[in-house]
Every structure is written in structure tokens, then in C-alpha cells.
């Protein structure tokens, strides 16, 4: 590292507005370098140079510009980009969005200082993710399976139980047949204190999690700091994964607040707005966050991401979920309809998707019939949904015998297969067997997407231990 002996400093700003500070340029300041802004009261804030010109430079101040008096502040240029201290001692600790402890404990003794922006992973050095993570939630394991190194967001809506689902995944997630180090890094971005607290508590209780590191920026913390939180959290996660061979799951909630902060910053910089006022570079910006997941050739650890975002007005075409969906490897979409029906987890089966699923399932990973059962259930449920709409118009009486079986399937699929307890853990065999039970209400010749061999092997009709529960349920319903 090059030592910078000459201290660069300015003692007044030209203007202060919307978390931006304009200062007269001093020689040698670098694009992207960190500054320390000291107020007359002695309070100091961190900032970053986001535009360097010959005469004027622009600084973005994390913590905002409130109480800034342009004539009596001190801006000190640090000569390096934003770096945070990292160490294994961070386990169990709680930090703010810039990595300062806020749990009353001592500062950590850094093992390393890392640039929060990381460096892009060389695509040629990535290992395609293929290790199935069993979450114990039937809907996820069977229909949109998660693999290590994937980035799979939850698209939620205001008031939907995304936090409970995420917490359940953390509690129950395992990779079969392997006992490896597993840690969770949690980034709270502009969420309420209660939400953040709920997470930290439920994470602490999880037995399989070696430990949790939390970065909290609550709704009352400075907006601009939200730009930094996910990057700080991911830098820590990468440190654990690439330096210490730990499998890390990063949960970031709520990315909508992040995007709002980005829009606010962009407006302050008077940039040409893109769709709905969000900056044109939002895709790229989000990508620099979401792309920091994966597995790397020659390294044992992995970074898996589960960002949570609330879709404004439940609209999946809103720029935030839209751009996220273009970057992430699928999405779990929560449905208000399912929620109203009292189902948990209230997932929208048809909108949800895991792009990396095919590499994580099948013989040797889950079970040979997994893919076919999955395809068949989706196809049958699609048909059932269509018939539901139709029967609402023309009445169930005018449907054929076959169609009524599909309606029955769709109901059972939701009530028996999707619906499950918040503390219920189903292994993949149980999940797939349950899938077969539900599918068995359809005539066998309708199971076109399943091979004859798999029908012979797994269809309840051909298995000795037929469970009678579904049959009973069918009659009752």
C-alpha cells in the first residue's frame, strides 16, 4: 500500500444539499476515495468522492448533511477507497451500515481491511452452483430448489410474512450428507427496529447456524447509509467464504429501501432519470450487489444470497422487482391471494422460479423423479387455476369429470402440499411423496410428463404403503 504522507484537507464547502457536499478540489484527490467530514460539534461522518473535477469535487456523505455549516466544517481526504475491518471475531456482533459496532461491545481487531466494492468475479473462474440446499419447505424444495451460490430473492408485499419464511429457511437449511461450516450475514436496510430485532433473535435461536453477523440500518438511520449496508455485508460474507471456507447465506431486507435511497441520491445529483425516477444505471448498480454470490473454482466456501424486497403496490413490473428479476437466478414471489386464504408459505407457484434448480436436483442429489414430479405438478396446477377461473364464470356443474378432478387437485395442492407449519420440516423424500399423493387424485393417463418407470416406482397405487390420508381428504372435500 502506498502511504500518503501529505494530508489533504479543506475547511469549507461550496454547497451542501441532499447528502451531497461540493468542495473546492485539492490536488491529488482520487475518484472514489473516502473522506472524513468533521462538524463543528466534533461529530465526524464518512463520505466518498463521487466526481472529481479540476475545480470542484462532489462528495456523498453517509449520514447526510444535516447540521452541516458550509463555512466551518473540515473535510479530510483519506486517499483510499471505502474499506471495512473484517475478522472472525465479528460472529454474534451487531454493526451499523458502515461496520461500526452498535451492540455496546468493543471495536473488533481487524484481520484484514477490505474494499466494500469487492472486485468482480472472473466468470471463467466461477463454478456452476449445483449443491441442493434442503430448506424443509415443500414448496421451495420441490418447485424452486435453492442451490449453494445462488441468488434467489423473495418478492413480497407489504404485510406478507417474508421475514418468517426467511427465518424458517435459515433455521432449517442443510446440505445433505455434509457437515460444513455455515454462517448467516444479515443486512437490515431501512427496516423498522422490530423487524430487525425479530430477525436477529430468530437467527440466534437457529441451531444449525454457527453464527450470525448483523448489519443494521433501521428506518430511522441516515438514508444515504443504505447505499453502503449491502456492500459492507457482502464484503464480510466474501471474507468468510473465500478466506475461511465458510458457506455463507446473506439475507438483505429490504432492497426496496436500497433502491429508494439510490433514487434519492440520483435526484440530488440532478441526473437524467430513467423509469419512474430511478436512475438509468440502477440495473448495473443492483448487479454489483447481486452478482457477489457464487462459488469459485478452487475455493471451498460459497456465498448464497437471499435478498428480500417488497413490491410497491404488489406490482412485479415495478422497476425494483423487475431489474432484480433480470439479475437474480429466479425469484420466490409471495401472493396476497394465498395469504388471504390463510396458507403458509403463501407463495405464488406460477410466478416463482429457480433458474439453477435443474443442476441441483435429480438422481444422487434429490431423487430421480424430482424433475418430472415438479413439471407435472406445475402443469396440473396451471390447468387447475385456469379451470377455477372458468368455473367461476360458467359454474362448476358445466365442467367435465376430468376438469373437476383438476379442480380438486389444485385445492389439495394448495392445502396439503404448499401449506405447512412454520416449524415443520419436511425432508425431500417426504415432500416428493406428498407430491405423488396429491397427483394421484388425477387419472394416471393424465400424468403425461412423468415416465412410465417413475409412475410404476413412485405412484401410490403401485406402492405397498399407500397412505390413506389423501383419499380420505378427497372424499371429505
Amino acid at each position, binding site marked *: 500500500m502506498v502511504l500518503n504522507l501529505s494530508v489533504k484537507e479543506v475547511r469549507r464547502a461550496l454547497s451542501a444539499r441532499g447528502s451531497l457536499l461540493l468542495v473546492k*478540489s485539492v490536488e*491529488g*484527490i*482520487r*475518484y472514489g476515495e473516502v473522506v472524513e467530514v468533521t462538524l463543528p460539534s466534533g461529530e465526524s461522518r464518512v463520505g466518498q468522492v463521487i*466526481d*472529481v*473535477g*479540476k475545480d470542484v469535487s462532489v462528495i456523498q456523505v453517509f449520514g447526510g448533511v444535516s447540521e452541516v455549516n458550509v463555512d466551518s466544517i473540515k473535510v479530510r481526504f483519506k486517499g483510499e*477507497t471505502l474499506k471495512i475491518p473484517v475478522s472472525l471475531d465479528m460472529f454474534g456482533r451487531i454493526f451499523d451500515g458502515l461496520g461500526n459496532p452498535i451492540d455496546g461491545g468493543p471495536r473488533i481487531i481487524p484481520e484484514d481491511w477490505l474494499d466494500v466494492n*469487492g*472486485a*468482480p*468475479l*472472473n*466468470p*471463467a*473462474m*466461477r*463454478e*456452476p452452483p449445483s449443491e441442493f440446499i434442503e430448506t424443509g419447505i415443500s414448496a421451495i424444495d420441490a418447485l424452486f430448489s435453492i442451490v449453494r*451460490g*445462488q441468488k434467489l430473492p423473495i418478492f413480497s408485499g407489504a404485510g406478507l410474512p417474508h421475514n418468517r419464511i426467511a427465518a424458517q429457511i435459515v433455521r432449517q437449511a442443510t446440505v445433505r450428507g455434509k457437515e460444513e461450516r455455515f454462517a448467516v450475514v444479515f443486512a437490515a436496510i431501512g427496516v423498522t427496529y422490530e423487524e430487525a430485532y425479530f430477525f436477529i433473535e430468530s437467527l440466534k435461536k437457529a441451531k444449525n447456524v454457527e453464527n450470525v453477523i448483523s448489519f443494521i440500518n433501521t428506518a430511522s438511520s441516515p438514508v444515504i447509509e443504505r447505499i453502503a449496508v449491502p456492500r459492507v455485508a457482502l464484503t464480510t460474507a466474501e471474507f468468510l467464504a473465500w478466506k475461511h471456507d465458510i458457506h455463507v447465506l446473506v439475507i438483505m431486507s429490504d432492497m426496496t429501501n436500497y433502491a429508494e435511497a439510490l433514487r434519492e441520491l440520483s435526484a440530488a445529483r440532478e441526473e437524467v*432519470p*430513467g*423509469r419512474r425516477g430511478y436512475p*438509468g*444505471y440502477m*440495473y*448495473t448498480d443492483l*448487479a*454489483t450487489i447481486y*452478482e*457477489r*454470490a*457464487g462459488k*469459485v*473454482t478452487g*475455493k471451498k466456501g460459497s456465498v448464497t444470497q437471499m435478498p428480500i424486497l417488497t413490491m410497491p403496490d404488489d406490482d412485479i*413490473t415495478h*422497476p425494483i422487482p*423487475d*431489474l432484480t*428479476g*433480470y*439479475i437474480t437466478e429466479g425469484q420466490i414471489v409471495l401472493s396476497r391471494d394465498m395469504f388471504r386464504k390463510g396458507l403458509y408459505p403463501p407463495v405464488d407457484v*406460477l410466478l416463482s*422460479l429457480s*433458474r*439453477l434448480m*435443474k443442476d441441483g436436483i435429480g438422481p444422487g442429489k434429490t431423487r430421480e423423479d424430482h424433475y418430472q414430479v415438479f413439471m407435472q405438478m406445475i*402443469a396440473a396446477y*396451471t390447468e387447475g387455476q385456469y379451470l377455477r377461473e*372458468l368455473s367461476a*364464470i*360458467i359454474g362448476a356443474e*358445466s*365442467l367435465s369429470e376430468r376438469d373437476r378432478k383438476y379442480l380438486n387437485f389444485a385445492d389439495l395442492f394448495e392445502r396439503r402440499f404448499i401449506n405447512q407449519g412454520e416449524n415443520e420440516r419436511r425432508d425431500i423424500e417426504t415432500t416428493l411423496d406428498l407430491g405423488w399423493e396429491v397427483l394421484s387424485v388425477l387419472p394416471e*393417463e393424465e400424468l*403425461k410428463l412423468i415416465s412410465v418407470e417413475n409412475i410404476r416406482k413412485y405412484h401410490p397405487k403401485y406402492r405397498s404403503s399407500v397412505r390413506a390420508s389423501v383419499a380420505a381428504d378427497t372424499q371429505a372435500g
Partner: protein
Amino acid sequence: MARGKILRVSGPLIVAEGMEGSMVYEVVLVGDESLIGEVIGLQGDRAFIQVYEDTSGLRVGEPVEGTGSLLSAELGPGIVGKVYDGLQRPLSVIGEIHGAFVSKGVKLPALPRNVKWTFRKSLDVKVGDKVEGGSILGYVQETPILLHKIMVPPGLSGVLKELAPDGDYTVEETIAVVDVGGGEEKEVRLMSKWPIRKPRPYKTRLEPVEPLITGTRVLDMMFPVAKGGKAAVPGGFGSGKTVLLHTLTKWSRTQVNIFVGCGERGNEMADALHSFRKLSDPESGRPLSEKAIFIANTSNMPVAARETSVFLGVTIGEYFRDMGYDVLMVADSTSRWAEAMREISARLEEMPGDEGFPAYLGSRLAEFYERSGRVVTLGSPERVGSLTILGAVSPPGADFSEPVTTNTLRYIGALLALDVSLANRRHFPAINWLLSYSQYVETVAKWWERDFRDWLKLRNEALRILQRESELMELVRLVGPEALPDPDKLLLDVAKMIREDFLQQSAYHPIDAYSSPEKTVLMLDIIIRFYEEAAKTLNEGVPLSKIREAPVISRIARMKEVRNEEFRKVHEDIVKEISDYFRKLRTGELSGS
């Protein structure tokens, strides 16, 4: 060469002063770390430069150095099977040297300098012959399935003065000397360079009359793309765009495939790389990576390099086209490139057009798509090559009225519109048959009709059934399916058959993934015959319920799983079963059963 100083840094854009004498699109080295940049505008002594690497840490006053040359691709043996970034740096080599992360300022040649290639000189030329740009001097068997032809670079012509004997040479060693007249001599090496923004010249352009066989039924049969044609694949997220493009790159019957991942996911790129090494070419049985080139500028890599990745891909494509090959280039996704243009344009404070995109968005897209084509190449011997371009478009909110999609539609010949609602129903490839079109249908029909007389008829009949289905579905939504007359119910059954048993195709099924032209046509032939026979039978008063009981229906449902080479026999079988069954229904032989 210009030597200036940085005046301003704003993200990927820098402004430098003291840059007199530099030219637009000249490559410059920026700052103490010599980051690679390109001049995109000049004003007085000021140059506006887009930098292809992360600009963090740059200071005002750091040097900017001109190189006097345009951003160029290195073309020669060693290019196939490689993974490059947007500046043609070999990512796998960088990975071996610098580890898993892409660091700044790395300079490595695109083609390995120390590898010796076995050069075999052409028997068609000899010393003393007149040669020109494009003339073939010899060959290097680069991979077992790719013969790399060594050509005189375009723009060079004269008398061949020396031609190296057969033997092993590095890309930098001279293999020929051309006397260009006026006492001047030029050396020809295995490697040449070409500026990526400049189209490579050819002799004449031909009409695209031959279809590009992709092995994907909905393309080959419904919306064909001609060799040398250009098509856009727009689709919202989750519509299966990338899977479709990977599939087309894998199975298309071409000699060279180029896949450009422009601003897309890193894991997808990794998946493509691994699967291309694992899968084998249906004709030769060799790994697909032996005829493929990858360019990866993932979404988190520098924005400005998205544009170069697209033009680099096209340039490499033209180079192989000039050898007389059929080349397919896929760009996933052109929207990310357009967004990069928007970002740079905003920083240049240009007047924005639609949704903040620069006003020149359309002309820049045209520059790209117009480089496709089927041509007679320069030089001797005379040969025909083609470059087909498939560009993915990622419209925000799956709204096709946005600027990138609408501008793209102005320049392409076929639209393969992906539909999220089809994908949600797991209908893959999710190409919407009502929105998609191909202007190549009439031109390629002749090629198909040489072997399959009914190609066009079958296609049009299938599309007519699907079109009629969508009209009937409107009605069904109001009154229910039972209220329709029987012939319409039959049509709905057949439409479902076309959708599920013909159009749907699994990219991951070992047999279904590649459907040979013969299998594709015969599959549809079976369905249309079924429809004709069934309609005739219904017309003669046989109830629809009897028709729906036809055992052949479940055979049709599983015909995808029949191997390409066995299909003709199965076709005969099924056709016979159809005609027998319906004849029996009509004559009453089956009515009692």
C-alpha cells in the same frame, strides 16, 4: 501521439485536456495504472474518454496517453474455445495468473504468443501469384472440427513473394511476404488485427435463402431464421431467454458459434462454459467448445466494455464468415449495452431521447445488426460465408413498447417474442406464436421444399389452427367449452396437441433438445393428418367422444422422445395407425367397442 492530463473523473467517463491530435475511437491509456479507454468525443484540446475498467482511485492530473490505434481484435489461431472479456483479454488465462477476481490494468495478449501451430500451405497459390485481401494462403487445423484458414488481411494486395513451407509457427511469425508494389513489401502472419467498430469488407451480398437449422422446432418450422439473417429475442425476466439462446448456440448447424454475454449473470456464463465443454456436437461428436468462442462481460464488470463486447463478437464472426463458414453470433443482452450507452450519454450531458436513451440508440443498433449477412467473400478461391445475429432484448416490465425493443424491430428480419405468461405455465420455449414473425419464411421455403414438399402448407395450417384457437378461447371464457360445436372442440384439441406435443420442447431432454429437420416436419405432419382424418370422421357423424378415445393420441404425446434417426419409421407407423383407426370409426367397425 497525444499526451494529456485528467481534468475530471465521473464514473466510467473521464475528461482529459492537452489531447490535441487524438482521434475519435482512438485507444488511450488512462492514469498511472494505464487503464484502457477509448476517445468518444473531442472538443478543442479536450477529449471525452470512456474507460473500460474501474476508475476508482484516479486523480485529476494523472497522465492520459494516446496509442494512435483503434480498438482492434486479434484474429488468428488460438481464438476458438476461449473466454474473453469485452477487451478480448483471455479470462481463463487471467484466472490462472491473477486468481478468481478480475483486477485492473491487466494486459495480456488475446492469442497465446508461445504456442506453435501447424501451418499447411494452400496448394492453390504459389509464389509469383497475384493475391488480394481474403485470398487463402494456408490452413491451421485449430481444433478437430475447425479448420482455420489463413487469409491475406483485407486491404492488402500484390504479388506473393514468399510463402513459408509447411511447419510449426507462432502467431507472430511471418508466413508470407506480399510485394504490394512501389518497392514495398508486407508480411503476413497467422495473426491479424481488425478494428472492431469497422465492418470487414466482402465482395457481394447475397439474399439469405438457406434456413439456419437450429434443432428447435418452433424456429425451424414456424419462425425460421435464414443464414445471414438477424433476429431479435425480446422477453421479460423468467421467460427463458437465456436458456433459449444457449440452446440455439449449442445446436445450430453452423461451423462457428459466438456467444456474447453482455451485462448478464456470471453464473449463467459459468454454466454455458461448462455445458459447452460437456456436450458434443450432433454431427461430429466433438465437444461444442471446439467450435465456440465466448465473450463475457457480466453485469458487474465495467459498463463501457459492454459495447466493445458486442462489436468484438461481431468482428470475430465476420472473420470466420470470411473463411467461408456459417457463423452464428448471439448477444445476450443488447438491452444492457443500450443501458451502458444511456449511462455514458447522461454523463456526457447529451440531450436525452426516449426514456433517457441517447438519440443515436437506433443508429448504433443498426450498425450492429447490419453486420450480419450472407456474402461472397473477398479473395480466392471464391466462397460463400454467412453471419447470423440473434440479439436478446430485455424490456423492462416485459413491455415491448420500450425504446430498445422498438428500435431493434426496425432492423431485424425475425421476431421471436418470448412471453412471460407462457413461461409461467412452463410452456418452453416460451415463444408467442401470435406475436412472433419471420420475414424469411418465403425465402427459405424453397430450401425446405426440396426435401419436404409440404413444409409451407403444414406451417401455415398449424398457425391457422393456433390463430383460430385464440379466437375460440375468447368465446370459451364467456360460455365455457361445452357450449362450442364439436368441430370447434376438435380444433381446440388439435391446437393443444400442436402446443404441447410439437411446440413445447425441453432444452434438457437428451433426445428432445435437438430435433432434426426431418423429425420436425414429420411430427407436424402427424398432427395435421390426425386433424384432417378426425375432422372428416366427425363430419360423417361419429361422436367427438369416440375421436377423443383414439389410442394414438397418447402416442403422439410421447413422439418427442423418439430418436431423430428412428423417426421416419415411427412416422409411417403412426400415420398408418391414424388412418386405420379413423377408417374403422367411419365404417362403424369400432362403434360397438
